[in-house]
């Protein structure tokens, strides 16, 4: 086990903190410790750092600093966007539209709103994971107040036609939000160019610390206050301002955007090399998602006739980190809702694995993982009754009622 090579291919889950961002954050943990809302010099030093960070983030996104609200991350931003609009605009209507492949933060929030009496339409996707603009327009009714479609999907990396969707929303007077958590730092993201009213982002996906994110809210859009409390975030989200994390978010975003072109190209090259080798060297594998319209860091495969968790844990024993769309790793019986929405067979969805590359990965990492995968897939297939018959239908199978 000693000196075992370790390869991290789970950057869509989280990334390591940028060393540069960490060093920018350090003074704000102990030296500059004032409460940014205090009037004395201790507080004002902290307030200056927050203002400066907010201004920098706004500038990078091409928006006004007054349109930036700091949150604890992407989940909070998504919760705030949909619930905040639903509650604030409920006199205008009670209908919400989201895609079926949203992150759990959006899906669970929508479910919660359904229990409050809101109506939710879940837009399906095609086999590549793309939402259809026509279907979106057809789903809009007189009572539609809010719609949300993610900029890029976290499991398969499919990039959604946000400009087209936001234009339709605008035409019908529907507030449009996009969850850009996976996209920021990977592809250029400018809310005004996308035409969205609201946008969520999360720091730790682009080498900022965990626990900090942003909800962009276009001037004129007024969601309900999210956290009752003091005057922080223009009284919309109470709670003492988290100065070091905000400084870290700003520093990491600046770094990510300045390196974006170079990193994305490098990451895409490694991903493509990896994908080609997997598809050429391992039989019975499907590449899930859109082959072209896709985040550069994402590769998602279904290894047929075996189950994802077994692959994931075997890779882990070899020092390799990735993520699985199988039900077994999530604790539910249903495999990935994203793959099922794309029409992937449930059995194949259970055998899906997501690899997400980052700026520190190399071609050698990719090769090491392909070599490991070949052995692991072969080993698990030798154990699989499905591989023996190359079919998901087995003769003499007694259906087992799951007992949970």
């Amino acid at each position, binding site marked *: 086990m000693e000196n075992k090579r370790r390869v991290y291919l789970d950057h869509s889950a989280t990334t390591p903190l940028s060393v540069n961002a960490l060093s920018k954050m350090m003074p704000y943990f102990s030296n500059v410790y004032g409460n940014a809302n205090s009037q004395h010099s201790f507080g004002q030093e902290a307030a200056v750092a927050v203002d400066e960070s907010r201004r920098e983030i706004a500038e990078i996104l091409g928006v006004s600093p007054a349109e930036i609200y700091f949150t604890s991350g992407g989940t909070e931003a998504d919760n705030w966007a949909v619930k905040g609009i639903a509650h604030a605009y409920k006199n205008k209507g009670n209908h919400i539209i989201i895609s079926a492949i949203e992150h759990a933060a959006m899906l669970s929030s929508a479910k919660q709103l359904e229990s409050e009496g809101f109506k939710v339409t879940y837009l399906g996707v095609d086999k590549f994971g793309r939402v259809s603009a026509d279907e979106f327009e057809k789903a809009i009714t007189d009572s539609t107040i809010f719609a949300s479609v993610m900029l890029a999907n976290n499991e398969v990396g499919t990039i959604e036609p946000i400009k087209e969707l936001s234009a339709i929303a605008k035409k019908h007077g529907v507030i449009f939000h996009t969850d850009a958590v996976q996209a920021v730092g990977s592809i250029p993201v400018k809310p005004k160019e996308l035409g969205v009213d609201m946008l969520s982002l999360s720091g730790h996906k682009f080498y900022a610390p965990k626990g900090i994110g942003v909800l962009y809210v276009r001037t004129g859009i007024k969601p309900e206050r999210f956290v009752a409390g003091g005057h922080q975030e223009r009284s919309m989200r109470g709670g003492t301002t988290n100065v070091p994390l905000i400084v870290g978010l700003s520093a990491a975003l600046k770094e990510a955007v300045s390196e974006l072109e170079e990193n994305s190209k490098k990451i895409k090259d490694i991903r493509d090399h990896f994908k080609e080798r997997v598809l050429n060297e391992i039989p019975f594998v499907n590449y899930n998602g859109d082959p072209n319209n896709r985040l550069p860091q994402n590769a998602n495969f279904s290894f047929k006739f075996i*189950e994802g*968790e*077994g692959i994931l*844990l075997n890779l882990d024993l070899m020092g390799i980190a990735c993520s699985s769309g199988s*039900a077994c790793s999530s604790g539910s019986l249903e495999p990935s809702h994203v793959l099922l929405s794309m029409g992937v067979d449930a059995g194949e969805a259970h055998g899906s694995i997501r690899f997400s590359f980052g700026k520190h990965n190399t071609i050698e990492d990719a090769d090491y993982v392909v070599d490991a995968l070949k052995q692991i897939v072969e080993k698990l297939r*030798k*154990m699989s009754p499905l591989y023996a018959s190359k079919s998901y239908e087995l003769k003499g199978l*007694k259906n087992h009622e*799951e007992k949970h």
Partner: protein
Amino acid sequence: MYNEKVIKEFSNPHNVGELENANGVGTVGNASCGDIMKIFMRINENEVIEDVSFQTFGCAAAIATSSVATTMIKGKTVEEALKITNKQVVEELGGLPAQKIHCSVLAEEAIKEAINDYLKNYKKV
């Protein structure tokens, strides 16, 4: 999430593969639920399970329970094997996460199915 024993059984499972001359085969599970277990047995004239093997499509817990359950019944009589419960399989593994308990149920059912197959189709009366 898994204890060391489970990881050990999962990474180096015993009794893997198809058994030649099996006279009792039980398959349970469902591909869309993510686990299928197939147990092969060779039962002799004294109703002792001489040899046993498995093929499993499923998560680490499903593979580990298959390995342990087959090891537990090897050399046992049919009567003894029928008495093995999923709880004993879980105990043998030193515990399983709550959402994985159904894997041990699957193992118990696969054993029963294989024995039923033997009793129905192979046992010489």
